[in-house]
């Protein structure tokens, strides 16, 4: 089992969800957790104005996506996220990253199920 953590543009969430649905959805809804983070990277935030003065935030609002999947799904998931999150044919700075972390256990609180089927 892996925990896949992706940092994407907030406005791409829709697209990513759609492409994820194709690969992850089996009957019941596939599961996903998101939260808002601030990214400090090459890309700088959207410019804002204050009485003619230009404000260039160094932080960019990003959306973080966490999906836990069984090993068999890892590549499919990564591919789906890349597909949904990349903005131009060959991407643009700020499109984001995907990180994969090993996961040793998963528990469904409702049933107490463990491992693979708990995901």
């Amino acid at each position, binding site marked *: 089992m892996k925990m896949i953590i992706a940092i994407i543009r907030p*406005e791409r969430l829709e697209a990513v969800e759609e492409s994820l649905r194709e690969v992850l959805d089996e009957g019941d809804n596939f599961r996903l957790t998101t939260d808002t983070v*601030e990214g400090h990277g090459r890309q700088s935030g*959207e*410019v*804002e*104005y204050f009485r003619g003065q230009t404000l260039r935030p160094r*932080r960019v609002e990003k959306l973080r996506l966490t999906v836990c999947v069984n090993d068999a799904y890892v590549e499919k998931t990564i591919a789906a996220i890349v597909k949904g999150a990349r903005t131009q044919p060959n991407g643009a700075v700020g499109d984001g990253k995907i990180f994969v972390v090993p996961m040793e256990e998963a528990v469904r609180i409702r049933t107490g199920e463990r491992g693979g089927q708990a995901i």
Partner: protein
Amino acid sequence: MSADVTPTLDSGSTAWMLASSAMVLLMVPGLALFYGGMVRRKNVLTTMMMSFVAMAVIGVQWTLIGYALAFGTSHGGLVGWDSSLVALNGIAPSRLYADKGVPELVFVMFQGKFAIITPALISGAVAERMKFKTYVAFIALWATLIYCPLAHWVWASDGWLFKLGVLDFAGGTVVHISAGISALVLALMIGPRRDVTRGLPILPNNLVLTLTGAGLLWFGWFGFNAGSAVAVETPVAGAAAGLAFANTQAAAAAAGLAWMLLERWHHGKLTSLGLASGIVAGLVAITPAAGHVKPWAALVMGSLASLVCYVAVQAKTRFGYDDSLDAFGVHGVGGILGALLTGVFCFTPVAGVLEGSFAQLGKQALGVGVAMLFAGLGTYLIAKVLDVTVGLRTGEQEERDGLDLHVHGERGYHLESAS
């Protein structure tokens, strides 16, 4: 009205007109909050701006030519004009309006606030997707080509609808019907918001603003309605103003209560948006009747307004147009209902249906029909021209990311802790 005695300034009437003019202006920020709270975070500023910008644009337009068009010497009862009124240049500060003992400049300002808020009402129908530039052009044209003539017809002493005896105490027809219908037409032309089409829930970013806005609107509406006594009575701060004030209060309260009960019965919750919407619906419906009906009738009109508007609002989901914040559902429908019921419940200066005379109801219906046709058609033409020239709707990217950032280069809130 005793026009033979030369009128003298009445400081009491002037005091009330000054106060009520200011109160009506406060309705614009009120509307901005009312609307601004209902949209998504990414559009809160642009939505508020659609109201605020009217203060600037129409504020200038009215001073330059608006007043001349609406209240200048009548040309065939169809439109006013007086070059001496351009930029209010010919109005000496000491000149009084009609026989009301109020400086004409004060009357100009009072009327000007109406001209400002009316187009702003329309913005509710196109929130979150209309091009801001186009919107600004639209309200400037609309105020000049639709509002001013209509105001002339209904309120100028030589206006043809006025002469026919159509009653519109404080603007049910001129303000709410015209704005409501125009809102519907625009909403239909511009199409639903992306996420409405995609069936996604659109959650209001800040209902605290909406409630606050409703409060400011209620407050300002007392100036709106009770100030409109300037058209019917000397002194302005007198019986008619008192009656209008009482009816405004009664209708708003009854409507708020009715909407709440309706929702309770319909889905079991008492939403704050519902209470706020009911209040506004009631205020809209009583506007044309404020000085013409009795308080008990105001209670009835308010309750009916909520009932009818509530149903109307549900309609949009059925018919699939996206009147985002129900500018038509509340102002249009409420205005029509109010204008007609005025013909039913009025007891002064003329008798209505309840007192056995159907004549007035007919006149009211005429007024309603004319306003709907004129405003609807006019809006369609103006919007069509703007559509082919500058375009009505923002790009998909703008709509998705929100207009605040793209059009205004700002975000409504920066509440993240790090900042």
